[in-house]
């Protein structure tokens, strides 16, 4: 879907990105992470040509991005940023409908799409549609920013620290919504963050940048299990690495189907870290597991967190 081939970028003779090669497959949730100044924003903005690269090639759906007019390219990619940048003089409806309007959708279709997106982001359409951005809370504004990015069903969604300025509870909710939306729509996402826990939670692939180069790229589990060097090991947190490994896996991957246990059940989508927390808090070594609809489907044991159960060995 997006492919960087030996891409480089200089700012006034100083190399910000050096020989970056990376392929983001269709449907991937790719998270760029790294310390401040490592080139995350630069890498992201080169994709939609807000920043032009100096060396190498960047391909979008197989074609070089320079073969598209910048505006056309950007309309096919959603874009959401930390400062949100909602248009203050436009209502929520006009903000969300901005790209569809640029693409010439008929009014009724835009209206229906706005309703659909507001519902998807758990905002009551009739309450919010006609409001101006300054009458929204920070979390609501960020939701509208995400809705605007998603409005025209872009095949790629680019996000630069979209949840960076939010309180932990709101951030958590929006991360969950983002995962749900991405799973439902199959959109390819490239997201920038400096929060390793956010990366582990959201990413199907994490790309760690250091000084304009890729330090390591892989699934959260791969990176946590085998940091490529000291920098990555420090970055993913030496002492918390075990807990983060647990955060990178779902209860569904380690549970014993058909087994039973007593107590309030966990859901299959919960992370092993949440499971550990419950084991300790409830002082038990066995918990029942339910599926999304609330039906009991099995159980998980404390020991399964360390080693996959024998019957369903995980890779």
């Amino acid at each position, binding site marked *: 879907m997006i492919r960087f081939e030996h891409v480089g970028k200089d700012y006034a003779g100083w190399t910000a990105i050096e020989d970056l090669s990376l392929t983001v497959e269709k449907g991937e949730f790719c998270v760029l992470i790294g310390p401040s100044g490592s080139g995350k924003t630069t890498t992201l903005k080169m994709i*939609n040509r*807000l920043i032009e690269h100096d060396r190498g090639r960047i391909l979008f759906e197989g074609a070089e991005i320079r073969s598209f007019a*910048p*505006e*056309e*390219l*950007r*309309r096919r990619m*959603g*874009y959401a*940023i930390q*400062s*949100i*940048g*909602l*248009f*203050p*003089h*436009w*209502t929520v409806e006009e903000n969300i409908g*901005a*790209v569809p309007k*640029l693409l010439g959708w008929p009014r009724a279709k835009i209206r229906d799409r706005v309703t659909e997106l507001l519902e998807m982001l758990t905002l009551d359409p*009739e*309450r919010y*549609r*006609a*409001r*101006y951005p*300054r*009458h929204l809370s920070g979390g609501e504004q960020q939701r509208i*920013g995400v809705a*605007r*990015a998603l409005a025209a069903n872009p095949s790629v969604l*680019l996000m630069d620290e979209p949840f960076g300025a939010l309180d932990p509870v709101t951030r958590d909710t929006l991360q969950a919504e983002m995962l749900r939306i991405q799973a439902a729509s199959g959109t390819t996402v490239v997201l920038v963050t400096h929060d390793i826990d956010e990366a582990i939670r959201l990413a199907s692939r994490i790309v760690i940048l250091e000084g304009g180069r890729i330090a390591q790229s892989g699934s959260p589990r791969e990176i946590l299990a085998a940091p490529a060097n000291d920098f990555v090991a420090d970055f993913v947190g030496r002492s918390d690495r075990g807990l983060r490994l647990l955060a990178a896996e779902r209860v569904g991957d380690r549970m014993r189907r058909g087994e039973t246990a007593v107590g309030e059940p966990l859901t299959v989508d919960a992370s092993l870290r949440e499971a550990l927390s419950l084991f300790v808090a409830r002082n038990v070594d066995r918990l029942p597991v339910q599926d999304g609809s609330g039906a009991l489907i099995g159980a998980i044991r404390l020991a399964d967190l360390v080693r996959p159960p024998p019957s369903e060995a995980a890779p």
Partner: protein
Amino acid sequence: MRRIDPLIPAAIALVALVLGMPALKPLFAWMFPDQARPLYEQDSFLSLTLDHLSLVGISSAVSVVVGVAVAIFVTRPSGRAFRPLAETLTAAGQTFPPIAVLAIAVPLLGFGPLPALIALALYGLLPVTEATVAGIEQVPAGVREAARGIGMSPTGILARVELPLAAPVIVAGIRTSVIINIGTAAIASTVGVKTLGLPIIVGLSGFNTAYVLQGALVVGLLAAVVDLAFDRLGGFLGRWNRDRVAKTA
């Protein structure tokens, strides 16, 4: 309790004064018992007001078109280098008092409305340019970036984001420019243009305080009405920025 909009009584008073000045003749006769002619009657106040307004209207239109165009140009990437020059020139336009511009323009262009128009247009340029530049620059960087990021064209960003967001500030600049010009246009009567300055100038040179008062009253009221009208316009253009919660649906 709803407060009455002061624009309405002010506008009514202006119309009444312009049309009903002859009816006030006894009042002025009583106020200025020594004057043989206590009311300016060479021209009707209606025609003077209309002439005054058209002079201000045309010169302000020129100021606005040129001022906004210059401001847009110097805030584009291609015109950024000209910004100091434009600022110096528009500031110079306001440094010369209009009477000096008139004094220079008359020998070149003769008497009549043209030198007056040029003097007023130059004089009104600075507030418009300054306000437009300030208005465009106060658009938050994040809004601009988002506009570019979602695929708006540079022209689209100017027309649909920058100018509408700058509109309240631009209108404030135009308001200053027009109000200054309503006052300054009175001076244009010195070069033979009929404006509401005529009774004032005739009155001053003929020691007729009544004429001065009549001209000044109408000019003052006119400025007040126009000022209030601009205030409403600015409020309307900046309605998205009000604290009141927007009506739903």
